[in-house]
């Protein structure tokens, strides 16, 4: 009998997200539309898990993607750096109605807390936010000439991200600034699900240029050509 090969390709986004339970913590990649895994977010909306904690830089724009997930009342809490935008009306409404909890995190602290989770770091001291409202109640320490705030990692059950190309071992490359949070979210989640534009044979990605090695990736779905523009 032939040995079973590693194959992280899934047939559909539905299959890849089927086991997400109520109350899961989910990181969603993207900064604006760049790197936003639209197909996976749509599948998450269809999947019906509730009481979710979402980690993203923003809190949704206009009426689709994360904004639609919030509008469907599926998000209990959001960790982000910049929720308020001209078109964040679904978040604004839920927040003002007290239906969603907000943990506001400086953008660099958000990135570093995600990275720390992926790298097995217990906590770290950063000078960002010292002496501000966002450090209220947090442990501080003077190290050398500077004051620091203690910050803890953000772990996730799932990360939903977008990449440009993947092989079946899960090695990823990205496109331009669509990379943003994806590599560190892939490290921080127990199960990383990736939507990609193109799948390639093993060896087709230049090993010197692989950005996310496959060890950080569990499931890959290729965007159907007909959906590519929308996704």
């Amino acid at each position: 009998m032939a040995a079973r090969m590693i194959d992280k390709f899934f047939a559909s986004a539905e299959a890849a997200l089927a086991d997400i339970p109520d109350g899961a913590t989910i990181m969603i990649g993207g900064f604006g539309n760049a790197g936003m895994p639209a197909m996976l977010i749509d599948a998450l909306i269809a999947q019906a898990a509730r009481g979710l904690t979402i980690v993203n830089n923003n809190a949704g724009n206009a009426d689709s993607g994360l904004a639609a997930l919030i509008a469907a009342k599926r998000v209990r809490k959001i960790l982000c750096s910049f929720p308020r935008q001209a078109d964040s009306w679904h978040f604004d409404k839920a927040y003002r109605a007290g239906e969603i909890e907000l943990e506001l995190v400086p953008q660099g602290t958000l990135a570093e807390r995600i990275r720390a989770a992926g790298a097995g770091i217990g906590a770290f001291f950063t000078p960002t936010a010292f002496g501000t409202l966002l450090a209220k109640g947090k442990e501080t320490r003077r190290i050398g000439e500077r004051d620091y705030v203690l910050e803890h990692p953000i772990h996730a059950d799932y990360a939903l991200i977008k990449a440009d190309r993947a092989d079946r071992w899960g090695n990823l490359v990205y496109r331009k600034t669509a990379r943003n949070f994806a590599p560190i979210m892939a490290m921080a989640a127990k199960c990383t699900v990736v939507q990609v534009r193109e799948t390639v044979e093993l060896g087709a990605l230049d090993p010197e240029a692989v950005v996310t090695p496959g060890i950080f990736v569990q499931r890959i779905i290729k965007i159907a050509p007909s959906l590519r523009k929308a996704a």
Partner: protein
Amino acid sequence: MKKLDRSQMAARVARDIPEGSYVNLGIGLPTLVADHLPKGREIILHSENGVLGIGPKPAPGEEDEDLINAGKEPVTLLAGGAYFHHADSFAMIRGMHLDFAVLGAFQVSVAGDLANWHTGGADAIPAVGGAMDLATGAKKVLVMMEHLTKKGESKIVERCSYPLTGARCVNRIYTDLAVIDVKPDGLHVVEMVDGLSFEELQRLSGVPLRRLATAA
């Protein structure tokens, strides 16, 4: 007295950015500085979302939704530019690798405290983005703002009434009236617009200013 307009303020800031600098331009007014950097001076622009070496705006129809800046506007990449993930991007900021951050502000205090992220209003939804990282991490923080609020109150204050973005982090303030350095012994006026006297600037500012010997 002839106040500087937004474009003139941007040009004034651009003049002070030397060849070879790594610079982050904040959203809003500071973004205009890019249009005034002298041609032929190599200055490398950074954006929080993961790019160094931002070039001019793309021509209409040439926009790429995967290539944007922190303001989520389409940009281009210069030859020699690079992409990287968010943790590396903020390591550049927090690890003090950026030479300058140019930021807008609601208020700056005499001690160089910066308030630019939150009005503190009960109904306001707070949003911070990378403001606190830039205020704390850049080697030099340059603030660009109108000198006075719409009501005519000074935005340079004894103590910020808005929530702080960073404490004692501002190095220089560029307003539509003056250029002012923040030093341990107080605020030093480096330059004033034509037709403005030091006494008038002092009266409008409402906080103690010092006059540099070289100030016009």
